[in-house]
């Protein structure tokens, strides 16, 4: 899939500071099997598995020394992990939390516990729900039959529990269509009594299942040292994050399938420079901080 470029030097990115710590909390296990999933998650893909509360707790303790600012949980589907509620409760004692979910398996009982946990402390608990477009017609062909309806039910449940979910869409349409689609989605959400819709469009990553769906990356879609010259490195999440998995610490949540992305067992071992040799790096380069919240988005001062 990802191979090294045949010519030229590969630019390296340093870990400027560990601002965001990610947890691959349900590995590559998911109840859905979206066609564009960039790490090909499915009910059967256990190449990465669930993180235990114990593993998360250890990393949380280690993260203090690194001055981690925010914690992110992803998968697969985080809510398939049986310990997810205690894991999130524990993490909220350390800092702000964002969970990326497909919204289809949420339960009222979990959400009321999490709402209590959020209110006990002073940090935000953010939910990002992936829904690919404002209608079943745009979403279901990608995410599976009836997933639009099920995810919207999840959104309603979140709103009922006092959360303000951020809905993220992978762009499967032309960039120029963004405004129209956002407007349509705002309308749909308002009908569902979600009166403060927060929406975000993400670029597609052409790796994993998405590489089969579309064309994958060409050999020339690589970052060259020249491209890095005037570039603000903080736009790349590997400049300020790492991801904890059941198989060690990786450079970012995007490159789990790449052998060189595993950096070591501990945060300490993972605090090394990383060569931007992958096609997905090219998308990061083009679109900036694709995985963080709007409120955490970095922007350049120069």
């Amino acid at each position, binding site marked *: 899939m990802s191979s090294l470029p045949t010519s030229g030097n590969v630019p390296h990115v340093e870990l400027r500071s560990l601002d965001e710590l990610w947890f691959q909390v349900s590995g590559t296990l998911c109840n859905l099997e979206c066609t564009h999933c960039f790490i090909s998650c499915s009910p059967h893909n256990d190449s990465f598995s669930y993180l235990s509360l114990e593993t998360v707790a250890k990393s949380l303790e280690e993260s203090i020394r690194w001055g981690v600012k925010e914690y992110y949980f992803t998968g697969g589907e985080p809510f398939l992990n049986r310990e997810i509620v205690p894991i999130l409760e524990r993490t909220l004692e350390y800092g702000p939390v964002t969970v990326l979910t497909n919204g289809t398996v949420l339960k009222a009982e979990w959400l009321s516990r999490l709402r209590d946990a959020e209110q006990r402390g002073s940090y935000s608990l953010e939910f990002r729900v992936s829904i690919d477009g404002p209608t079943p017609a745009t979403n279901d062909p990608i995410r599976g039959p009836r997933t639009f309806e099920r995810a919207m039910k999840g959104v309603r449940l979140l709103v009922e529990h006092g959360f303000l979910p951020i809905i993220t869409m992978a762009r499967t349409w032309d960039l120029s269509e963004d405004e129209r689609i956002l407007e349509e989605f705002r309308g749909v959400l308002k009908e569902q009594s979600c009166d403060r819709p927060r929406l975000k469009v993400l670029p597609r990553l052409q790796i994993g299942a998405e590489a089969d769906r579309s064309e994958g990356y060409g050999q020339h879609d690589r970052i060259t040292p020249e491209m890095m010259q005037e570039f603000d490195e903080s736009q790349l999440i590997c400049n300020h994050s790492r991801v904890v998995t059941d198989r060690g610490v990786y450079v970012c949540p995007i490159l789990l399938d790449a052998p060189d992305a595993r950096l070591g067992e501990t945060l300490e071992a993972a605090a090394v420079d990383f060569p931007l040799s992958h096609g997905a790096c090219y998308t990061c380069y083009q679109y900036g901080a694709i995985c963080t919240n*709007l409120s955490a988005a970095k922007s350049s001062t120069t």
Partner: protein
Amino acid sequence: MKLAIFGGIYNNYLALEAAIADARARGVDDFYCLGDLGAFGPHPDRVFPLLKEAGVVCIQGNYDDSIGNDLDDCQCGYTDPRDNHFAQISYEYTYRNTAPENRRWMRDLLTELRLEVDGIRFLLCHGSPRQTNEFLWDSTTSTHFLDKLARDHNADVVLATHTGIHWQRELSEGRRFVNVGVLGRPENDGSTNVWYTIIRTGNDLPKPTGSAPWDSTVNNTPIQIEFIPLAYNHERLAQEMQDEGLPEEFINTIRTGWWTTCLEVLPSRERRAGKW
């Protein structure tokens, strides 16, 4: 020592005038401003004579850097198209109405300032000590992050603004992070007042009156950080904004105390506290 610290002014010269008078009435006449002199409000040039007359020591915010260096936008760090649309309206208005000598003055401001007061090391910055336009919100900033920030920058008390909402956190060994709030617009809490901060240290602390005499100590020096809600003639400001043709959305915020723009950048907790 007694210091009054102002956050973003956003052209709100009426609030600045009121803040200077209010601080003086409280016996404080050392003034600092953490930048973002322009944005949002009317008549940018009216802020500068007030700053100079009162001897307010200013550092440079992202706005001042943009206006001073003739950049195309305010570098506020918004990512939502609607937020950016409104930010651009204020930016172009402010740029057009700021005299060249005031632009040059902003261009030459320092981006941070260090003060040592009664043995306490203060670091004054705009967003964070490491990035002028970094948003540090109460609900999305862990305590150990702030600890490391203060340690890495050799500061006991870090003072910042930029987000528009005041808050503070006590860190290890009595260190502090303080967002001093802004004079430019209300805090999205349904009140029309704005906020600034008074810091008292050492012998300038008020005498204990029964309840908490001071907030804590830093390096064995007592320190008190007081957030001051400030009423000013916001009706007049709203009227002047209307006369200048500034967006209804901004005027609404001044009159109601609720934010109507820049909402997408708010974390959920801060967003829920508001109306929109």
